[in-house]
């Protein structure tokens, strides 16, 4: 990293410290924790875009898949639901997979031609019918089990930290399939395909209630760090509060938040070490070559397709990991909240503003953009108050402007984004 980089990170730390000093330490840590997660997501996207030039606009889908892993790993199983239809739901799933595999076998075995097309369609239709005959009733039965608070199969009831690597694996698995299907597409076409697939993933999460409770959300998921409410009772926290002269609840929140921050920072540190080392090795040189000119890289003996798939899977796994971390911090999975603007485009903004092709840039971007995303709201209000301060009290315009202050949030975000892009068009810490 350059001096400029260190300087910018120092500034970022200063900004967080100011939040702590002038607003509150709880807020500073809330922002810090989500910034760490955002930084990890940005690292994942940077691997795909910055290293390989893959335009993945399906980040949302991979994050959500990672989140689902938390539910499936950490939630306690629902025995009634398993009894009601667990076995047949699984059977249904397997039938579905089997029919797809059968179609693939048909595709590989039969010669090209009309017969093959018809055979594939036949296999798929038959598979669909059989699958839905088994699967449909099973899921209905599961969803009917205590729908207000359960209505799904639950998870395995394992420790929640285990869900993080599993989240990464889930995302990697989905990415492998997605990559196999769509990596032949270039730039914007890949973008829209991945966007589409991520929408499909969210649709599945929303509608397959037997698995994720759908739009009814899963809440109260186990946490990797003791919750502040429980910490408040701990004697050492109380004595710490006394030493600091803080309230117990504040101390507990800060301690719990720092616990997450430690875990997340550890993950981030490992990831960035791996990324930096890879990026500065012949592997990184090869990836840059592939990004610059695929045709030429192929002619120089690099298996572009395979490398693309690998980096796509790797980057998506990192996004999935971040998604799992986020869900386990929130303690809930809300499929309805996965929106492209928040979970895809915002991450892209982080990567580009931070400096694509530079790991530290992406990390800094994650911090800066998340900080802004949260803090532009008071800034916008403050600005509105400033603007209207000169106006006569009770004037209609003033009233209108003040009541519209909430819309300053995105407006301020836009202005901040434009300013940063203007003064650092290649990113805050650009690729060398």
């Amino acid at each position: 990293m350059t001096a400029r980089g260190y300087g910018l990170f120092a500034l970022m730390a200063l900004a967080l410290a100011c939040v702590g000093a002038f607003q509150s330490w709880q807020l500073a840590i809330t922002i810090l924790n989500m910034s760490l997660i955002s930084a990890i997501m940005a690292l994942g996207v940077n691997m795909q875009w910055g290293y390989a030039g893959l335009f993945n606009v399906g980040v949302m889908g991979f994050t959500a898949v990672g989140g689902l892993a938390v539910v499936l790993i950490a939630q306690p199983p629902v025995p009634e639901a398993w009894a009601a239809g667990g076995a047949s739901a699984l059977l249904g799933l397997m039938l579905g997979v089997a029919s797809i595999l059968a179609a693939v076998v048909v595709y590989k075995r039969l010669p090209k031609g009309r017969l093959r097309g018809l055979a594939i369609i036949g296999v798929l239709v038959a598979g669909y019918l059989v699958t839905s005959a088994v699967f449909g009733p099973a899921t209905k039965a599961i969803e009917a089990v205590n729908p207000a608070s359960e209505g799904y199969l639950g998870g395995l009831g394992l420790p929640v930290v285990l869900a993080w690597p599993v989240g990464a694996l889930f995302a990697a698995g989905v990415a492998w399939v997605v990559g196999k299907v769509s990596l032949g597409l270039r730039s914007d076409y890949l973008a829209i395909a991945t966007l589409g697939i991520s929408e499909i993933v969210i649709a599945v999460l929303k509608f397959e209630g037997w698995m994720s409770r759908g739009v009814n959300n899963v809440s109260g998921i186990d946490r990797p760090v003791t919750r502040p409410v429980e910490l408040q009772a701990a004697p050492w926290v109380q004595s710490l509060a006394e030493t600091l002269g803080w309230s117990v609840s504040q101390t507990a929140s800060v301690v719990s938040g720092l616990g997450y921050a430690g875990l997340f920072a550890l993950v981030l540190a490992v990831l960035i070490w791996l990324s930096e080392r890879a990026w500065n090795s012949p592997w990184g040189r090869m990836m840059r070559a592939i990004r610059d000119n695929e045709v030429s890289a192929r002619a120089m003996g690099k298996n572009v397709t395979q490398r693309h798939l690998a980096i796509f899977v790797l980057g998506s796994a990192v996004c999935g990991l971040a998604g799992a971390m986020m869900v386990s911090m929130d303690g809930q999975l809300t499929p309805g909240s996965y929106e492209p603007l928040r979970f895809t485009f915002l991450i892209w903004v982080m990567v580009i503003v931070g400096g694509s092709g530079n790991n530290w840039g992406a990390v800094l971007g994650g911090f800066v953009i998340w900080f802004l995303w949260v803090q532009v709201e008071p800034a916008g209000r403050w600005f509105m108050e400033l603007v209207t301060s000169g106006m006569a009290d009770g004037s209609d315009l003033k009233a209108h402007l003040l009541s519209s202050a909430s819309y300053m949030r995105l407006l301020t975000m836009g202005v901040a984004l434009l300013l940063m892009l203007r003064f650092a068009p290649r990113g805050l810490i650009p690729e060398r």
Partner: protein
Amino acid sequence: MSMIRVENLHKHFGGFHAVDGATLEIAEGSITGLIGPNGAGKTTLFNVIAGVLPPTSGTVTMLGDSITGLPPHELFHKGLLRTFQIAHEFHSMSVRENLMMVPPRQSGENLWDAWFKGGKVAQEEAAIRKRADEVLEFLTIDHIADEKAGQISGGQKKLLELGRTMMTDAKVVFLDEVGAGVNRTLLNTIADAIVRLNREKGYTFVVIEHDMDFIGRICDPVICMAEGKVLAEGTLDQIKANEAVIEAYLGTGLKNKVKDGVA
């Protein structure tokens, strides 16, 4: 055995037959010149052989094994290298890095080694770097080794194209107009290098060029293509004497040779 054998090869773009039943043979150890009018299908033929384009029909064999339709990276590992007529540099990488990425089977390209076997990777890197620097010096572009390849002059890009083929051991090298835009004095040096590589290391070369001096200096035999087919084959002198080749390709020199006309 012939190094490359192309049999009745067709490549169609829509209704247009860019390569239209070409059959030719490249002898092992030869430096074969490939000439022909613009649009004769030379580059297209290269692209099909090198796996960039799938053939419409026909076969290509290398040392007796079929390589029809193999992807370019596999062909590279079989020892088939090529340059591009329109330079395909890695524009955001330095000139030296452009060369250093070429050698195959670098252990540092494997993530595991890159992460956990730093020593081994560093050792390999030093060797590769040395070789790259030698190539750069030979091509007289060592002073721009650290420039971004996207920002070097047109001729320098051509040299870089050639340089990449010198970074690894090859069996057969396809050169697509490496000379176009390259200074003639330097081109002579390059010609000598090609001959040397051919003699000392036994590389086979196939060379597309429009500069007859260059062809004459290094090539034997010469194949002339036209309209997707092989028009004539033989030594350069035979080709130069061929009426059809003269009409389609060589022409008879300047009409207004001396300005303000002597006549």
